[in-house]
Structures are given as structure tokens and as C-alpha cells.
């Protein structure tokens, strides 16, 4: 038990005897322990916590923690072709430079006057995402793409008064689980089949399931299996014709070359920010967004804080504030229909930095280069005997499904052999999507050059033989 004075730790001032004495005297108690007089004695822990012994020196702490981390083999070391919702893109140095700045990193809930810069950066992130998706309202960051999709389809249920959500059967299983769990009390999630050949949404099945009960048609461009479905604008049209809302999920790294969903009629667009300047961070790099048209009935349904531009009345200088806070769970409490809290704002700021660096030209070059690399990779892999790549005929961006049925090997066995050569193979789909047989989802981005892709193809050839 720390005495009143005597235990001094670099993170805790006011443990020195002199400081303690002055403070205890000001309060009028003999000891800090006396301040716990409200807690029944029976509740108090009578022994020290049984924790590992502390490591007092920063050097020792580093050695300990870094020693554990050294057991990891990261994708900086391995050659990685796994994506599936968290993708390895190049992170510009300026992105890390900005998000490590203590002013941002350790800021929290300050508003217009104390955290003017934070709010401006977030407003700029909202604005740049708005340009990418072609919509006028963009939320502050959500936890991840899945959380954004959950909130969006829930918004659709409230806006339409309906209780059915149609989603593609290709949807990532974890994201689907998030949505099922979130909507469980108020809606049902129904999967729409995908076309076995193209991988696109089966529009006949969609037509069969679309009804006056449909609150939202949720589609992803690209889909969780990588397909860029040219039917997306038509699906949006059909959904809206039935009075449902069209909710489109996007990977924003595509939007230098793919059409903004707002321009083909999407009511709500959601997506994942991680490709825009975030390291994967073992999945901690994720953050999502929600976007829509600027109509009060939509804005009223956002769960998130929304940062608005405003002005200094005297001179027109810009400032920022949180708009319509009373629609959030912070005000509504038990009457809330969704919730908001600490989310992933540091990644929102970083996405603003990324998009500012890339500009329209960078985003176009990024998109085109990825499409070309992925096409090259699929073609190279498809040449291997017994391997079908891409499995689907539909267009794709950076991810494509590879089927190994005719090799007689499981994806697990193939990936194990790849790993022995320092390669992280595609995500195994054989459990999540048994109908696809022994298939894996491979991801190629701008970090891969031809030698990397050729190395993968060579290693795969060996692995399946």
C-alpha cells in the first residue's frame, strides 16, 4: 500500500511527501486512504492486487513489450496478399507524422474554441469523403465499416417504417454477424443470392425478395468477394422504385476511378476509411463513415456527431461546431434508437491528410494501378494447373476469388506452404462460403510490384503441385 509520500512514479506527480502533506492539509484529512470513507469496509480489497511485478525503467519496459512483439511476423516482413476488410496499402509518411502529433493524439472532447483545429480537420475529412461519394452529409468516423452499415440500415428502417433488410449473400460473414446482432430487436436481415458465374448480385432473386416490407437494399461496391457489380446503379433504382432506401457500402480507395454512389442515386453510402492512410494495426486501423443527401429527415436519423462549418459573425472567418446534438444518444438516453461515443476520429483526421496528399490525380493513378496489378495477378495465378482465377467472371478491383478444387488441396494446406516461403496467401473462404468449394480471396494493392506477384504465382504453383 502506498504511503502518503515515498512512492514516486514518473507518471504520478503529487506522490512526493511534501506535495502530499500540503494537499492533505488543505483537505483536512490525515491520509489519502481516509478519502474512501464512503466505501463499506467489507467491499475493500484487503490485499495488494496480484499482478506481474512492475518494470520501473522505460528501457526495461520497452525491452519486455518489444520482446513479446518480436514474436510477431508482420506484413512489413512477409509478402501479404490477404485483405478481406483490412488492406495493406502504402501509408504516406505525412499521415503518420500528423496522427502522432500529441496535440491530436491526446485531444478528446474539447469543442469549438479549445479544439478548433481538430474540428477543422474532421470537417475536412467529412468534406473530402463527400467529394468521393458524391453526397453532402458525411458523419464523423464510426467504429468500422460494419458499424456504419448497421447504423445506415437502421436509419433506413426508421425512415421507411419497414423491417426487412436485403443484403448480398457475398457479404463478409463477420460484417453480417455485426448487422444481424445490431438489427435483431427491430428488423430481419435477408440474403439475396449472388450469380454463381459472375459473382454479381442475382437480380432475379433481388426482384423476388424486394417488397413493400423492404426497408433497405444494402449492396457493396466492390462486394466482399471483390466483385465490381456493374448492375449497382440498376439495383439502386429498383430498390428506390419499391420505396426502399439504397444503402451502398464502398471501399473508398476505388473512388478515384469508380463512380460516386451518390451520382447513381444511393440514399446512404457507408464504407471503410482504413485504406486511406491507416496502417492495418492488427485490425485496429479500421474506421467507418456514413454519408447521405442533405435533408433534415436524414440528418435527424444520424447517430453520430456531425461537424458543421459556421462563421464568426463580425468577419466571416470560419469556425466549427457540432450540429443538432439533441438527436444523439447523449441527449436521448433511454429513448435512443442508436448510440454514439468515442469512435475513431484520429483515423478520420488521417484520412483527410491522405486524400489531401493524393488529390484527384493520385486517387486515379492508385485505382488504375491496382486494377492493372490485380488483373495481372489473377491472370498469372489462373495459368497454374488446376487453379481457377478469377473464379468469377465479374469485374474486380483489388480482390478476387481463386478456386483450388481441382488441385485436390485445401486452402489451409496451400496457405501453410505459402507461409513457409514468407507469403501470406488469400483469406480462406471454404468455411464461410462452402458453396465456393476450396476458394480463397486474394488481395493485390499498389504495394505489390511485378516481382512480388510473380513470386506469389511461382510459390502457388509449387504449393498446389
Amino acid at each position: 500500500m502506498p504511503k502518503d509520500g515515498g512512492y514516486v512514479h514518473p507518471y504520478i506527480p503529487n506522490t512526493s511527501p511534501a506535495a502530499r502533506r500540503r494537499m492533505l492539509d488543505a483537505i483536512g484529512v490525515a491520509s489519502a486512504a481516509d478519502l474512501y470513507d464512503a466505501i463499506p469496509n467489507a467491499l475493500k480489497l484487503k490485499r495488494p492486487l496480484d499482478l506481474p511485478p512492475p518494470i520501473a525503467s522505460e528501457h526495461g519496459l520497452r525491452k519486455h513489450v518489444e520482446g513479446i512483439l518480436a514474436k510477431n511476423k508482420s506484413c512489413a516482413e512477409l509478402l501479404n496478399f490477404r485483405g478481406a476488410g483490412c488492406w495493406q496499402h502504402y501509408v504516406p509518411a505525412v499521415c503518420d507524422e500528423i496522427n502522432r502529433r500529441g496535440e491530436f493524439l491526446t485531444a478528446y472532447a474539447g469543442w469549438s474554441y479549445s479544439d478548433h483545429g481538430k474540428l477543422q480537420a474532421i470537417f475536412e475529412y467529412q468534406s473530402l469523403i463527400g467529394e468521393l461519394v458524391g453526397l453532402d452529409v458525411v458523419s464523423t468516423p464510426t467504429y468500422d465499416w460494419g458499424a456504419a452499415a448497421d447504423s445506415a440500415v437502421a436509419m433506413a428502417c426508421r425512415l421507411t417504417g419497414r423491417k426487412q433488410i436485403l443484403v448480398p449473400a457475398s457479404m463478409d460473414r463477420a460484417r453480417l454477424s455485426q448487422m444481424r446482432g445490431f438489427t435483431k430487436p427491430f428488423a430481419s436481415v435477408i440474403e439475396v443470392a449472388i450469380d454463381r458465374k459472375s459473382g454479381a448480385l442475382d437480380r432475379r432473386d433481388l426482384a423476388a425478395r424486394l417488397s413493400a416490407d423492404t426497408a433497405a437494399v444494402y449492396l457493396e461496391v466492390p462486394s466482399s468477394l471483390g466483385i465490381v457489380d456493374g448492375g449497382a446503379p440498376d439495383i439502386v433504382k429498383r430498390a428506390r422504385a419499391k420505396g426502399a432506401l439504397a444503402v451502398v457500402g464502398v471501399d473508398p480507395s476505388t473512388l478515384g476511378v469508380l463512380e460516386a454512389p451518390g451520382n447513381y442515386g444511393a440514399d446512404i453510402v457507408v464504407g471503410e476509411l482504413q485504406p486511406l492512410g491507416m496502417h492495418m494495426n492488427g485490425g485496429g486501423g479500421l474506421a467507418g463513415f456514413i454519408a447521405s443527401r442533405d435533408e433534415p429527415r436524414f440528418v435527424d436519423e444520424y447517430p453520430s456527431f456531425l461537424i458543421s462549418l459556421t462563421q464568426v459573425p463580425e468577419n466571416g472567418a470560419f469556425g466549427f461546431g457540432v450540429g443538432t446534438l439533441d438527436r444523439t444518444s447523449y441527449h436521448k438516453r433511454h429513448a435512443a434508437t442508436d448510440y454514439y461515443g468515442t469512435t475513431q476520429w484520429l483515423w478520420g483526421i488521417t484520412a483527410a491528410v491522405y486524400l489531401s496528399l493524393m488529390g484527384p490525380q493520385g486517387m486515379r493513378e492508385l485505382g488504375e494501378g491496382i486494377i492493372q496489378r490485380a488483373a495481372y495477378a489473377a491472370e498469372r495465378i489462373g495459368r497454374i494447373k488446376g487453379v481457377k482465377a478469377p473464379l468469377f467472371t465479374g469485374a474486380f478491383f483489388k480482390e478476387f476469388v481463386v478456386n483450388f478444387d481441382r488441385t485436390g488441396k485445401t486452402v489451409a494446406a496451400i496457405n501453410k506452404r505459402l507461409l513457409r516461403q514468407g507469403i501470406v496467401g488469400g483469406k480462406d473462404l471454404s468455411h464461410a462460403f462452402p458453396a465456393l468449394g476450396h476458394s480463397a480471396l486474394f488481395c493485390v494493392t499498389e504495394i505489390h510490384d511485378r516481382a512480388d506477384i510473380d513470386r506469389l504465382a511461382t510459390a502457388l504453383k509449387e504449393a498446389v503441385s
Partner: protein
Amino acid sequence: MMRRVEQFQAARWAEPLIMQLGTQGERGIVPPAPDEQIRKAAGKATARIPASLRRKAPPRLPEASQQTVLRHFTRLSQMTMGVDVTPDMMGTCTMKYSPKVNDHIARLPQLADLHPLQDESTIQGLLEILYRMNRIMCEIAGMDEFSFQPASGAQGIYANACIIRAYHESRGELDRRREIITTAFSHPADAATPAVAGFKVITLYPGEQGYPELDALKAALSERTAGIMFTCPEDTGLFNPKLPEFVDLVHRAGGLAAYDQANGNGLLGIIRAGDAGFDMCQFNLHKTFSAPHGAIGLGCAAVGVKKHLAKFLPNPVIAFDGKRYRLDADRPEAIDKIRAYLGNVHTVLKAYAWVMSLGAEGLKAVAETAVLNNNYLLAGIAKIRGASIPWPTNPHHRLEQVRYSWEQLAKDTGVTSDQILVRMVDYGLQHYMTSHHPMLVPEPFTIEPGESYSLDELDECLETLRRIADEAYTQPDLVKTAPHRASVPRLDEAAVDDPAKWAFTWRAWERKHAALAD
């Protein structure tokens, strides 16, 4: 020595928006181009995009040089009052020192460049950190198993609501048990997230001592009770001594008891949720456990449960056979995914490093010092003209924070708590928090100093509040028209709530202002 607070002037760069910077054709970075053989083999990229989805007009993103972008965002950072820059004693937020070394470690490629779905053999270090931190949290909380998947306190409380739902569902009682009880001075998420999970929420209001009485709980309990979301101390800093009885009564009614420990900074090593009978709890690793708040996130809620609820924690959990760590997702009764993959694992790493630096004795010193600092401020604020401490008849000391009131000052001067909050920024301090809703305390202000501010900084906070109170009595307009030395002067604050004027993107602003100009 105390800073001369009256000399402060915030950075005021009058920085344009990034959309207004740069010149057409400039660029900040060049992405790696595919080589010629790839380009030749793949052909024109746009030809591979279905015509219906080809982008017709490029996105209107900035066209600016790298240094322009760097300077712009560096300037914005300089107009942001993070804890690294100035004390932030915002109540309910547990702002404290986030050790730099932990951030440096978390940025190593061995964590930053991990893919969450890598083969287990290549992420043994990550799994080991998660496993060790799980054991540590179990000891701190008196629980049997933890999950770090939720990415914020609110999401952690939501996860608890989902576990309560799954528990009653597994027993065939969910149809009947539709109600969750919480308290008015808890975080709004304690009421909101059970409502989102489908429960009817009953809110207990404070009695004469500042916290709910047992009778109020008894009146709320019934065979419909699914559980309670209990916060103690609530945002008032008052510890409810009847806590064990609350837990016991909820259990007798067949409900589960969840302990929201977002306000747990003063309780480390003092009491444990498990010992108090709770079935589950949640700590915010970005608050109590020092991980940086990240300008409103990268958070993590550590959600802890007793053995009988462990099967409901979201997939995957970390298993350890004494030699290898592995991810176990073969748990059919797990609630649905709360967040993708494993959550904000970098936040867990920073919290782990923090605990390893402090150990048991250090954690208790954190708690006691946080309570000591808070009571030191309270003793000082009690002497400031116009400030008061609600529930004066409650004889007990406050723990880690206090919800104060400027009711008297507002009556005397017409200056409100919101205006004083803004004036704080003129003195170079991050402002306090007023109150979560409902605003039961008139003209509320909530201050939580935590353990990491020095005595000089605590005195600086007191001196600033004293000065502002004096200003309110002598030159109220000075306070009402604040800020005067912040990064931006007083704004048109009503515009952000007006559909005709609000603008959540630059394109919306341009459209609305073009319309106004017409």
C-alpha cells in the same frame, strides 16, 4: 511554479480550409506505378470497369504540394488542446498522461503492420499481449474472462446489454425480461445502448444524498427485470455505499448486474467489481488505462464477465495451451460480432505497457492520487465565490470527480456555466465538462483531475476558475463575450442547428452559399 495564465494566447493561424489551398495540377504524393509489363498485360484499367460505374468526373480533392499539406495539418494540430499541451480536467473523461513510450512501441511494424487474419503462428506476440492483459484485467476487476473487442465505452456497455440479452434468451426468459434499470447520473450510453439492444429502460433518479435509494430500486424491480447498468461513483463522484445491496436485490429478482467502470480511476486496487457481486463490468482502456483518447478515439472497452457468462463474449477469444496462443471462434453461444476482428489492439497494447510500468502498488497510487487531487480541487473550489457543491448534507468525500454548480454565480451575475467554460480557454486550459443529460444540477460543471497533473497545475486550474468567477462579478460581459484569446473568436453557434445554414461538408456549404448569394 505556476504559469501566468493571463498571458496566454492560443495559436490563431486563420488557416484556410484544405479545399482552398494549392493550385490546380499540384500534388502531395505519387503512388507507385505498375511497371510496363503489367500495364501491357492488363491493358487499359478503365476498360476493366463496367461502363455504368466508370467515374465521369474526378473527385474535387485538394491539389497541393506535400509541404502545403503537412503545414496545414500541423497548424490545425497547434490549434488543438490535447493533454500533451495543457491540462484537461474534463469530468467523466479521465484525461491523464499517455506515456510516449507506449505510443512508440505501438507504432512498430510488429504491431502496426499486422493483418488481423494472419496465421496464428505469425501473431503469437499480439495474442500473448491480449492474453496477458486479459489475466491482468481479471485480477483488477475480480472477473473470470475479458474481451477487448468493443472500441469504446459506449460499445462496451452495448456489448454488456447484448450479453444480458443472450443470457436471458438462453434461459428462455427473454420474452418476459424486457427491462433494464440504470441511473440518471450514469453515462447516457448506460440508458441508450440497452434501448438499442431492445430493452425498455428504467432510470433511477438520485435521492437526498445524491444517489438513488434502495427503495427506488425496489420499486423498479420485477419479474420483467433483465438487469442493471450500474455506475458507481456516478458522474457526481459520490460512491453509493448501498452498492452491494443494489447488486443483491437485482440478483434476487433474477436480473444480471453490470458495473460501468468508466469512472473507475479512483478504485484501482481499492474495490473489485467481481467481489461486489457484479456479473460483468467494463473499463475504458483509453481513459483509466492511459491509452490516448485520439481526438475522440481510438478507444477500447475491456468487457469482463464471470464464468457463467464467458460463453457469451463475442468471437474470437484467445486460448492458451501453455505453449501456443490461438484464436477460438468455435463458441456457438457467443453474441454477434461487436466490432471487426479483435478490436483496437494497439489500444490494448498501450494499456498493457502502462500497467506493466506501474504494477499493483502503482495502480493503487494512481487511484489514491486521483482521489487526493480531486479532493484538493474540491477544497479550493468550495472557496470560490458563486460555486457550490451539490448535496452538502452527504458526509462522505467524493472520489475521482465532482459535479459542481455555478447556480449562485449565475443568479448573481447572469453568467452561465457554458460561458465560463469558454472563458477557460482564454487562460490556456482545456475547458471542463458541464454535464451529461439530464442536466439535474443547475449550471453544472464537472471536473476530474486524474492522477497525472502536478500540484502547480491543480493550483493553476483553481486560480483560473477563481479569476473567471471574479470577472463574472466585476466584468460579466468579458466572460459572456469570450473567447478572446482562443484560436477563433465567438462563432455563430445557432447556424449549426439550422437546416438552411448547417454544412457538414464543403460542397454543402458552397451550395447553400451560392443559393444565398442568388
